[in-house]
């Protein structure tokens, strides 16, 4: 197995140019969705079958009476499948179509996927989309074909500010730590790393430096980064208890002498009436 590689996205230097989105579509031959006008510079909307990179614009406009230098800037974040170490999508996939590759990335085998879409409802980041034409689900492959040929994923290759960096995970973590320390020294007290350690889904193959809390970027925090299988035990146990109670009640109601036959009813009725 090759050494784990990954992507480190430093949102503090993202300029929202969307070169990553374009490069991703170019390389992966994604035609994209019909263009839409939205009430935002974000005209991509979400990650889906056509958008494997999505530059989020978190537009928190200053109040009118805000003094100069006191307003909040836009936050930008080039979102992507996180290639989770404990991946919700891989966990629920019933066909084994979703696998972990030799690079430690999470990959959907198109020939195996039968389009049940369980992974879409499981991915806590909304990273997977269904393509009606192929009848299967799609997401970022971390440019698996490029990795196999010792090439950098298209998004990282093209990013003009090096907001997206590709490399060995261990090296990327060192870089991220250094960058965080710099930002904190500069007084950015809210700056934080997301998915660098194992607290979020056992660590993310695509991790981030954020300038605010994860929720602000539409990312679940530590408490909410939970796997679907947590609900198996409660779900089945509830059903089991219900089955026990229902079978008991049903047996009482349906048993032979539980309710007299019509003829018997009449006799009972007559005797009570009389």
């Amino acid at each position: 197995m090759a050494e784990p590689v990954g992507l480190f996205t430093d949102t503090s230097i993202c300029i929202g140019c969307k070169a990553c989105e374009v490069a991703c579509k170019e390389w992966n031959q994604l035609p994209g969705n019909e263009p839409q006008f939205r009430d935002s510079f974000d005209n991509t909307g979400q990650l889906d079958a056509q958008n494997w990179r999505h530059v989020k614009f978190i537009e928190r406009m200053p109040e009118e009476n805000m003094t100069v230098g006191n307003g909040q800037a836009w936050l930008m974040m080039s979102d992507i499948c996180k290639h989770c170490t404990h991946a919700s999508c891989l966990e629920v996939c019933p066909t084994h179509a979703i696998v972990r590759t030799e690079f430690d990335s999470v990959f959907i085998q198109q020939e195996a996927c039968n389009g049940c879409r369980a992974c879409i409802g499981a991915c806590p980041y909304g990273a997977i989309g269904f393509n009606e034409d192929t009848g299967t689900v799609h997401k970022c492959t971390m440019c698996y074909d490029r990795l196999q040929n010792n090439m950098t994923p298209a998004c990282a290759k093209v990013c003009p500010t090096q907001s997206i960096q590709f490399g060995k995970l261990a090296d990327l973590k060192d870089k991220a730590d250094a960058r965080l320390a710099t930002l904190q020294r500069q007084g950015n007290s809210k700056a934080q790393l997301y998915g660098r350690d194992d607290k979020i889904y056992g660590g993310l193959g695509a991790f981030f430096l954020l300038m605010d809390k994860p929720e602000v970027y539409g990312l679940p925090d530590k408490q909410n980064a939970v796997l679907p299988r947590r609900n198996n035990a409660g779900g089945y146990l509830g059903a089991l208890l219900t089955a026990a109670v229902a079978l008991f009640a049903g047996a009482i109601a349906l048993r032979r002498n539980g309710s007299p036959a019509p003829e018997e009813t009449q006799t009972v009725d007559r005797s009570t009436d009389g």
Partner: protein
Amino acid sequence: MAEHFVQAPQWHWYILFYFFLAGLAGGSYTLATMLRLFGADRDQAIARMGFLIAFPLAVICGILLTVDLGQPFRFWHMLVNTTPGEGGPSFKYWSPISLGSWVLLLYSIFTFVSFLEALRNRTSRASAGVRVFNVIGSILALFIASYTGVVLSVSNQPVWSDTWTLGALFLASALSGSAALLSWFAESRSETNGTKRRLLKADGYFALLELALIVMFFLTLAGAGTLSVALAGPWSIIWILVLGSLMLPIAALFRNRKAYDRATDATMRLGPAGSFALIVIAGIFLMRLAIIFSAQSS
């Protein structure tokens, strides 16, 4: 409070009808077995009906699940691992869809055998061997009627993943709907009047259980902060209809026997034959509709 940033899996009408019919398929088989084990000789005609409908319903369930897939001809990928270099059966006990695919296959075989047995065996009682077979089939039936709720919960969707109650709720409602359905069959013949009465009594108990679970469902969602999603817009109206339909078997249960008979007979006389059953069954359909669609429209 639970946070959700997930997308909807677009499980819509096929899945709704699958969940609905899987409930009736599982519930009918279970109740038919119970009538066989605990019922009188004259109940056996309705037990037979239960076995006769379980198989076609299970077949329709398989078809609905298949056509819902983006690649229907790859339905067998649920059972066989097609990853190059791996092969072998595809089985993940922690994935309810995977487990459910295997159980549905097995259950279809059980319902098929019971279907053939019911075709042959007119009204006489079943042998001990057949009864044991039916009991095993009923365990699978109970699973089929309930695991669909667990499929929803084992996700990160709002509402679905915020409660442990869905498997339980789907099971209680499946039994209630199936009792109503079988009582409808019993309605048409005078000799099965007693069977009808017992089934309606059972329905009352199942409906009570379902009501308690609906309360638990709402409480767990309130705790997770997603009750507003489940009750948004039209869904609150659907829930009122669901609760209304539940009141019918429950109200009937709480009368004394004479009034109970009169109440159930009156409901049946109110409309065309089967109106009682239809209202109860519509309720379990609407409940699944509200749960499936509300979480995906947020």
